[in-house]
C-alpha cells in the first residue's frame, strides 16, 4: 500500500495503532479500528471512547516507539515530518495522510480501512463521506456565488489558500476564495484584504481566541466592512472545520446551511 505522501506502507497484521493527531484519531475510530488504538495524541478529544486511552506526545518518537505500534497514523495537518521520518527509520510502519480536499479525504478513509485491516468499513466510510459532501455541494449550487476568505487567525491575518481542504470547502459551499495561491497553504496576508470590495464572506472556526481576535479587528479600521455587515462572518464548529477527518462533511453541511439561511 502507498500512503498519501507516496511512501510505501508494508502490509501485515495490525493489533496496535497509534494515531498522532486528532484528525487521524477520528479516522481510525470511524474506519472501525477503534479497538486497536493503543494511545491517542494529547490534543485528541473525539470520540468519547478515547477517554480511557493513554496519551502520547506526537513529537516524542521514543514514547511512540515504546508503545510498540504495528501502525502509526500521521498527518500533514500538524505532525512534524522529521518525527515521522525518524519513526520510519526505526522500522515503525507509518501511514501518512495528506488531506487537501474532500476527494483526498475519501481516499484517506479507504486507505485507513485498508492499512488497519478494515477494508469494508473503510470503504463504507469513504462512500458516506463522499455522499454527504456531494449532497452538501449539490445544495450549494442553488446559492449565489460569493467571494470569501477562510480566516485562520485575525492578527496577523492568516487565511487558507488554494490547495487546502478549507479552500475546497469554500468552493463546494459556493464561495470563491480570494486568498492568494502559490504562497503556501496558510499565508499571512495584508489586513487590507478585509477591505477589498470584492470580499463578501469570512468563514471562521468558532474558537474563543478567534472571537476575541474579531472583536479587536472590528475595533480597527481594517474591520469596518465587518462592522457594516458588508462582509458577513460565518462561524463554523472549530473541531469539525479545523480537522481534515471524517467529521469534515459536517462542517461543510453547517457552512451550506448558514448560507441557505442567508444566501
Amino acid at each position, binding site marked *: 500500500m502507498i500512503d498519501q505522501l507516496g511512501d510505501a506502507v508494508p502490509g501485515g497484521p495490525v493489533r496496535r495503532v497509534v494515531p498522532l493527531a486528532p484528525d487521524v484519531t477520528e479516522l481510525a475510530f470511524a474506519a472501525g479500528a477503534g479497538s486497536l488504538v493503543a494511545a491517542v495524541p494529547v490534543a485528541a478529544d473525539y470520540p468519547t471512547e478515547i477517554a480511557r486511552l493513554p496519551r502520547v506526545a506526537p513529537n516524542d518518537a521514543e514514547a511512540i516507539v515504546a508503545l510498540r505500534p504495528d501502525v502509526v497514523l500521521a498527518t500533514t495537518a*500538524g505532525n512534524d515530518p522529521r518525527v515521522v521520518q525518524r519513526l520510519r527509520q526505526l522500522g515503525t510502519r507509518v501511514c501518512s495522510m495528506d488531506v487537501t480536499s474532500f476527494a483526498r479525504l475519501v481516499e484517506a478513509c479507504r486507505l485507513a480501512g485498508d492499512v488497519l485491516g478494515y477494508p469494508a468499513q473503510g470503504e463504507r466510510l469513504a462512500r458516506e463521506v463522499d455522499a454527504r459532501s456531494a449532497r452538501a455541494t449539490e445544495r450549494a449550487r442553488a446559492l449565489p456565488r460569493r467571494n470569501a476568505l477562510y480566516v*485562520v*487567525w485575525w*492578527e*496577523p*491575518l*492568516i487565511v487558507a489558500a488554494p490547495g487546502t481542504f478549507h479552500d475546497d470547502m469554500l468552493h463546494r459551499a459556493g464561495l470563491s476564495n*480570494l*486568498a*492568494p495561491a502559490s*504562497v*503556501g497553504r496558510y*499565508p*499571512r*496576508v*495584508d*489586513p*487590507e*484584504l*478585509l*477591505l*477589498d*470590495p470584492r470580499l463578501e464572506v469570512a468563514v471562521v472556526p468558532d*474558537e*474563543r*481566541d*478567534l*472571537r*476575541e*481576535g474579531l472583536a*479587536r479587528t472590528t475595533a*480597527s*479600521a*481594517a474591520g*469596518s*466592512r465587518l462592522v457594516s455587515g458588508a462582509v458577513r462572518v460565518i462561524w463554523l464548529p472549530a473541531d469539525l472545520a479545523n480537522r481534515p477527518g471524517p467529521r469534515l462533511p459536517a462542517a461543510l453541511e453547517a457552512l451550506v446551511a448558514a448560507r441557505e439561511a442567508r444566501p
Partner: protein
Amino acid sequence: MKRGADLALVAVLLAAAAAALVFGGPAATPGEALAVLSGGGSPEVRTIVLGLRLPRLALALVVGASLALAGAALQALLSNPLADPFLLGISGGGAAAATAAYVLLPAAALGGVPAAAMAGAAAATGLVWWMARGPLGPSPTRMILAGVAVNAAASAAILTMLALAPSPRLPGVIAVTMGSLASASAGQVAWLAPYVLVPAFVLLLHGRDLGLLATGEESAAALGVEVATVRRRVFMAAAALCGGAVAFAGVIGFVGLVTPHLCRLVWGGSTRRLLPRAALAGAALTVLGDLLARRALSPAELPVGVVTALLGVPFFVALLRRSA
C-alpha cells in the same frame, strides 16, 4: 556633496512615504488612493488609505527612525560598530516578554502585549546595566558581553515558548519575533510618537558628547564630557526608543545596525551630524521594507524584518566595498 546627499535622503523618504500610501495594499488601486490624497475618493477607499495605510506609514516612520537613532547612538557610545539594540539584548528582552504575553495571557487580554514588550525591554536594559557594572561604572566591553548574555537568554526563552505555545497563538508570536507593522493603528501612533520624542531629544542633545566619546573616554573627559552621566542617559534613551519600537512592531532587525553605517559612509563620521540623518534613513528603509513586504507577493505579506535586511545588505556591501 553632503547637501546633495541630504536632499536625496529627504527625497527618498518622501517618495517612499508617498508610495506607501498610493501602492500600499491590495484593496485600493493607485488611482483610487491618489483620489483620496487629493481630497476625494469613496468612503471605503478613504478608510483604506487614511485608516489603514496612513497609520501603518506613520508607525513605520517612527519605528524605523527610533531603531536607527538608537543604533547610531549605541555604536558611538560603545565605540563598537556591531552595537545595536539587538546585540545589547534590548530587542530580545522586549520580544521575549511579548512572546510570553502572547502565550500566557487570556485572549481578551492580548491588547496588553505592547505593554509587556516595553516592560521586557526595560527589564533587559536594567539587567544589562546591572551585569556590566564595575568600580568605574559599566564599561563598553562589559555592556556588550552582558547584552550578548541577555540576548541569548531571551532567545532561549522565546524558543521554549514557541515549542510550548498553543498552536493557534503561534502566528501572533511569529509576528513579534519576525517583525510586523500589520496591526498599526492611529491609537498606537498617537501613543508611540510622543513617547519617542523625549529619548530622541536626549540622544540628539548628546550628539557632540557621543562624538567625543567615540574618540576615547579619557580625551572626552578631558574635553568636559561627563562620561558616566552621558553613558547612562544615552543607554537608557536608546533602550527606551527600542522598547517602543518592539512594543508595536516586534523585532525588526538590521535597521539599527546597518543604517548608521550607511549614513557614515555617505556623510562621514561626525556623530552629531550622523544622528538625525540616521533617523531619517532608518525611517525611509523601514517604510520601503514594509512596502516591499506587502507588495512582493501581494496580498500575502512577508515579515518586514526579512525585507529590511534584504534591502539593507546589498547597499551595505556595495558601500563597504567602495570605501575599502
